[in-house]
């Protein structure tokens, strides 16, 4: 709110309604805009991890580097909590930001659950992890889940660009996964997903400026 409210003055009905509308709108815009920084944070992390793991797998031809994926939430979740706590008074939540946060927490939970399931199965049946992942269609499942989460975020924020980005990442990623075959390249779908997250964060920050 630009102006200073120091006087506890009485207002006309118009002034009161105007104050309420302005306060609610400004607050909603600001909270949503600030939530954009977490999209950028996770986008950078996902882009970095996907490129790192892709490079390690490709140049050593060792699929065991895939276990590094578990470091992503292990680093990301405490770092995000630290960022939230550091700016606690700024990080106020409303219904929209709580809903969007819930969408991505659910995605994270499912992604970790699928990863953990693959880990357990691979320990019980110590065959090739890559083969197992291919059988389970791990990348396809994750990219579809990602696209779904992104699309729902677009619905929550009433933003077509984010909805389309979710559709392109989910369905497009799935198509690339099946076209690209069995090399390491399909892993780069996650790099694209990371860039989509960064773009989402930037769109949110611009839309709610």
């Amino acid at each position: 709110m630009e102006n200073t409210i120091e006087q506890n003055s009485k207002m006309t009905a118009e002034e009161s309604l105007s104050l309420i509308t302005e306060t609610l709108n400004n607050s909603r815009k600001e909270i949503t805009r600030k939530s954009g920084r977490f999209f950028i944070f996770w986008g950078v992390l996902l882009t970095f991890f996907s490129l790192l793991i892709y490079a390690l797998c490709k140049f050593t031809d060792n699929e065991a580097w895939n276990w590094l994926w578990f470091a992503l939430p292990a680093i990301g979740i405490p770092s995000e909590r630290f960022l939230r706590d550091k700016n606690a008074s700024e990080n106020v939540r409303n219904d929209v930001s709580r809903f969007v946060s819930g969408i991505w927490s659910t995605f994270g939970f499912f992604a970790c659950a699928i990863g953990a399931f693959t880990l357990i199965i691979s320990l019980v049946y110590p065959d090739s992890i890559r083969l197992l992942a291919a059988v389970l269609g791990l990348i396809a499942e994750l990219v579809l889940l990602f696209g779904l989460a992104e699309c729902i975020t677009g619905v929550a924020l009433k933003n077509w660009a984010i909805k389309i980005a979710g559709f392109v990442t989910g369905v497009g990623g799935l198509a690339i996964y099946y076209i690209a075959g069995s090399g390491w390249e399909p892993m780069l779908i996650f790099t694209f997903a990371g860039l989509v997250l960064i773009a989402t964060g930037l769109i949110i920050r611009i839309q709610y400026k």
Partner: protein
Amino acid sequence: MFPKLDPLLHSELRLAIVSLLAGVEEADFNYLKEHTGATSGNLSVQIDKLAEAGYISVEKGFKGKMPRTTCKITLSGTEAFRNYVKALKKYLVAGK
């Protein structure tokens, strides 16, 4: 007959506080201070008045070593805010 406007809410700073809290889960003192631009003393007095009326709940605690006061709108505060907006609309419709 016009409904009576809630005198507790019909004050610029208190209305701004309640409007801010109506749109969020909870907010701390610094957030309210920054968004209303009020002085700490005045804000503190108005928060106390709203808390005494049961419109908001106030929780005092610590974040690390720093004291932190968190405010949250209550159910009766939400109801009062809703009634206040309804009453305002009646005034505006009648004025047209």
